[in-house]
């Protein structure tokens, strides 16, 4: 049986790992190599590596940084940040990415990029990064690391992206990310029955209890954490034990 994967989300700004709080205020965590190495050594199953300012500042992804810091890390790496074309994907796949994560360009500019990537690399290579924020009684999809709203509501966007061939969904909550107050369980309950591809839940976990609360609802294919590991790297083995129970 496949196990729920424990995934670390590493957010990069310039040459450092940072942790945005509610996708805004930034805390500096450390050097990219050190953070990746310590999470890998602690037994993480997978890494999501996101350049959080590439789209916002409209600049290219820093490919050299990626290449240097992934050496001898033998787990799957998903890379995101300012992907606009098949050429951008080629560049990432040739330099260490096993999957790419897309949000801004697909959501705000051209959703057909999803179909193009899926057709070229297969659906298994493409993760849809959703940054959801509660607006009145619904959730809207945001981009540029939670800064820019779109007109898409979450269920509509999930359906479109799945039909276009996305292979996995990373569900982030702008309201909870970095808060340590627990996952957005209402959001999770709302989307779960509409998702046909593997689902990775992120945003808000601060303690083990939050993971248990999530697992009581449903066991997702992946759980993505960052703050909890930065607070204490030993949490990786504790969460793994909890997931495998």
């Amino acid at each position, binding site marked *: 049986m*496949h196990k729920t994967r424990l995934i670390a989300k590493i957010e990069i700004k310039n040459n450092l790992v940072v942790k945005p709080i509610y996708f805004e205020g930034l805390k500096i965590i450390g050097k990219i190599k050190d953070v990746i190495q310590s999470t890998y050594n602690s037994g993480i199953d997978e890494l999501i590596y996101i350049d959080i300012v590439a789209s916002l500042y409209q600049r290219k992804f820093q490919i050299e940084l990626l290449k240097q810091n992934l*050496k001898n890390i*033998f787990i799957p*790496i998903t890379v995101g940040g300012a992907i606009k074309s098949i050429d951008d994907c080629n560049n990432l*796949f*040739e330099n260490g990415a096993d999957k790419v994560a897309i949000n801004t360009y697909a959501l705000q500019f051209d959703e057909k990029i999803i179909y193009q990537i899926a057709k*070229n690399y*297969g*659906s298994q290579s493409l993760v849809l990064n959703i940054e959801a924020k509660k607006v009145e009684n619904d959730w809207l999809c945001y981009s540029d690391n939670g800064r820019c709203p779109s007109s898409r509501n979450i269920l509509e966007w999930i359906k479109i992206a799945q039909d276009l061939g996305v292979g996995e969904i990373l569900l982030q909550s702008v309201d909870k990310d970095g808060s340590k107050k627990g996952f957005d369980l209402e959001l999770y309950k709302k989307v779960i029955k509409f998702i046909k591809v593997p689902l990775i839940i992120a945003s808000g976990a601060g303690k083990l209890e939050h993971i248990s609360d999530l697992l009581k609802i449903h066991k997702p294919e*992946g759980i993505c954490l960052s703050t909890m590991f930065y607070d204490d790297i030993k949490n990786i083995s504790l969460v793994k034990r909890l997931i495998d129970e």
Partner: protein
Amino acid sequence: MNSKGKIGILKLPNRGNLNSIKDALEYCDANVGFIETNDDFNKFDKIVLPGVGAFNKTIENIIDKDMKNELVVNVNNKITLGICLGMQLFAKSSDEIQLTEGLNILNCNVKKIKTKYPLPVIGYNNIKITSDNKLLKNINESDQFYFMHSYAVSSTENQIASVKYHNTEYTAAVAKDNVFGVQFHIEKSKKSGIKVINNFLNL
């Protein structure tokens, strides 16, 4: 440096996680290079067909570079390892996106996995050895391998290991003489993957 010859990774335009597999082989002290044209084949003793991409696009790339015949000749004569899509290329054909002819080295076809659970299959799983082979030496049920795919090879007499996704069982590894294939990503499977890479280097 491993004394067991030079490893050539097939490099096609716009294909694959090439550095990941190169890093993993070099971590195991292999001497590694890329095969980009027909002239490169004779520089290498063993071949690796890496695996990120769609089947039809990859075959199209091979044909566009006029490498299909030379590739088949070399795979038939050198120790070759296909990883994920790289293994599927050995089949007679694949249904992915559109029916496409493969390299026709193994007697099997590539079909979509039949399951009511989410596809693609993405995650770690253990495998069941179904026929002893040096490629999977010292691998047991505690080893976890990373799978990332929606299509798999149909049952074949060349199967050496199987895997179970919920209640669907399918081929996880194949071997036929000098040709070997793994559906899982050995370059992404922590210590278990490194064990298989070392086994391959020792073949």
